[in-house]
């Protein structure tokens, strides 16, 4: 039975999640130098165009059509048979197409997250091909394993409410791999790039936080108590992680920064994502407080130590925050919150923690490996990195023949 309240909520949530991608564009766009801001906005925006088409033509079928194979089945290509009635295996109370379009927004934002790792130095053409291959060979299969009917991680009982594994760990480890193989931006040591527009970063963070209510609370796929729980813990974790990051900076550097609060809030949102439908509010505070510690260490200690140039910390925030969130789900999950979930380690079910660990491990290994292969293939055929002069002049001019800001009218 289609329920109008549920359907309305999922449609609104889909729009909220879509808004996260331009939100991310401003979050990232503010962090790059001004000669590259349009390239980042463009990459995020073109992903909305390209993957929307990819999703309705092949992506949705490969991700969600029931099958026992590597991908989902092919029976839903071009949305064949994906109708306006419900599909009870995914959600009995909303039209199947509503579920499809909600999921489309996740397929869009996931590859957009990776942009943070290779910003300021990737060729636009190579980026497009890389993104399409990555969506097809990494996102779609993984999405199928975790969320699809017959997916093996789903059958194993891995808990991922809104995409900690599928979205954040997945994009985060792909980010690390591309940052490493692409190499560091030139001149990095002599001239540390500073964010060119901090208000953009704040604007982007605000849009992300706002959109994340759709991401997490929408993942209940119904306008019910579970959605409310997800909404409340999402807000709570973002808040506690933003506070936590500011506090760490205050103690360590003497001053808290708005960039820090924004980074923390995003890290908190990442971490609560897999847990949103399985934990209550006190664990959400803990998850938020702790995630900023891990992510802060990742971006200020581990990154300089190893020297990879994850330009905008896609790995440091999304992968590290995502791993903590997935594992924290295995610690704090409670059947009192969601009878369809399971209890975590702290409620006497260590097995759940191990399953979470396995899902994290599988994602790291599979995505890491396949991302590397895709990168190398694209590099062999068309070259991934722009030449040195283009990098110095900026991608806005050399890849798009546009600039963001004029000097005089």
């Amino acid at each position: 039975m289609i329920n109008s309240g549920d359907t309305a909520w999922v449609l609104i949530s889909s729009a909220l999640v879509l808004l996260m991608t331009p939100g991310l564009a401003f979050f990232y766009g503010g962090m790059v130098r001004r000669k590259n801001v349009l390239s980042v906005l463009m990459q995020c925006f073109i992903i909305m165009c390209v993957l929307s088409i990819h999703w309705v033509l092949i992506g949705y079928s490969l991700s969600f059509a029931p099958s026992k194979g590597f991908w989902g089945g092919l029976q839903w290509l071009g949305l064949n048979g994906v109708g306006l009635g419900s599909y009870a295996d995914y959600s009995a109370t909303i039209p199947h197409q509503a579920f499809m379009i909600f999921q489309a927004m996740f397929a869009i934002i996931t590859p957009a997250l990776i942009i943070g790792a290779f910003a300021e130095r990737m060729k636009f053409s190579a980026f497009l091909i890389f993104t399409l291959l990555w969506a097809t060979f990494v996102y779609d299969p993984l999405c199928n394993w975790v969320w699809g009917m017959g997916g093996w991680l789903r059958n194993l009982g891995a808990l991922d409410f809104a995409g900690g594994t599928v979205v954040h760990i997945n994009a985060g480890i792909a980010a690390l791999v591309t940052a490493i193989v692409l190499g560091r931006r030139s001149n990095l040591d002599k001239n540390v790039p500073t964010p060119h527009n901090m208000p953009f970063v704040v604007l982007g963070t605000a849009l992300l936080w706002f959109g994340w209510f759709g991401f997490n609370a929408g993942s209940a796929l119904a306008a019910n108590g579970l959605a409310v729980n997800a909404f409340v813990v999402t807000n709570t974790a973002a808040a506690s992680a933003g506070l936590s990051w500011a506090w760490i900076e205050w103690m360590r550097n003497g001053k808290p920064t708005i960039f820090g609060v924004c980074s923390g809030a995003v890290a908190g949102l990442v971490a609560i994502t897999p847990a949103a439908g399985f934990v209550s509010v006190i664990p959400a505070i803990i998850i938020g407080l702790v995630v900023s510690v891990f992510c802060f260490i990742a971006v200020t200690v581990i990154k300089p130590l190893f020297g990879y140039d994850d330009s905008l910390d896609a790995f440091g925030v999304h992968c590290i925050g995502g791993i903590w969130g997935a594992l924290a789900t295995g610690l704090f999950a409670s059947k009192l919150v969601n009878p369809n979930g399971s209890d975590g380690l702290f409620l006497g079910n260590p097995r759940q923690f191990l399953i979470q660990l396995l899902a994290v491990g599988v994602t790291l290994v599979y995505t890491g490996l396949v991302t590397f292969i895709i990168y190398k293939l694209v590099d062999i055929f068309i070259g991934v990195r722009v030449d040195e002069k283009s990098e110095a002049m900026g991608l806005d001019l050399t890849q798009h023949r546009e600039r963001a800001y004029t000097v005089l009218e």
Partner: protein
Amino acid sequence: MKLVIAIIQPYKLEEVKEELYKAEVNLITVSEVLGHGRQKGVTEVYRGSKETGNLLRKIRLEIAVNDNFLEPTIRAIVKGAKSGETGDGKIFVLDLKECIRIRTEERGSVAIG
């Protein structure tokens, strides 16, 4: 005392700065300017209409030096800014009549360093 004014390509600024530091010239003023050169410039396209306007973005450096630092300064700028293509820019050298450090009111050569 001389005042060196150099107009260079924006993307060469980092290299020029680095060469200047090597030459121990540490005091520079940098501004972003628009200029009219022989170079045709990079074409920008906005909704299909090409803009090849003849005002190009350049970086302007101003460096006040004592006479013995003049040649090293010029060499450093050339080394950092030269690509061999049209549009690399120009260096102008002017006599500098006076220099006053505001904090101490010192004048002349000592105020430049």
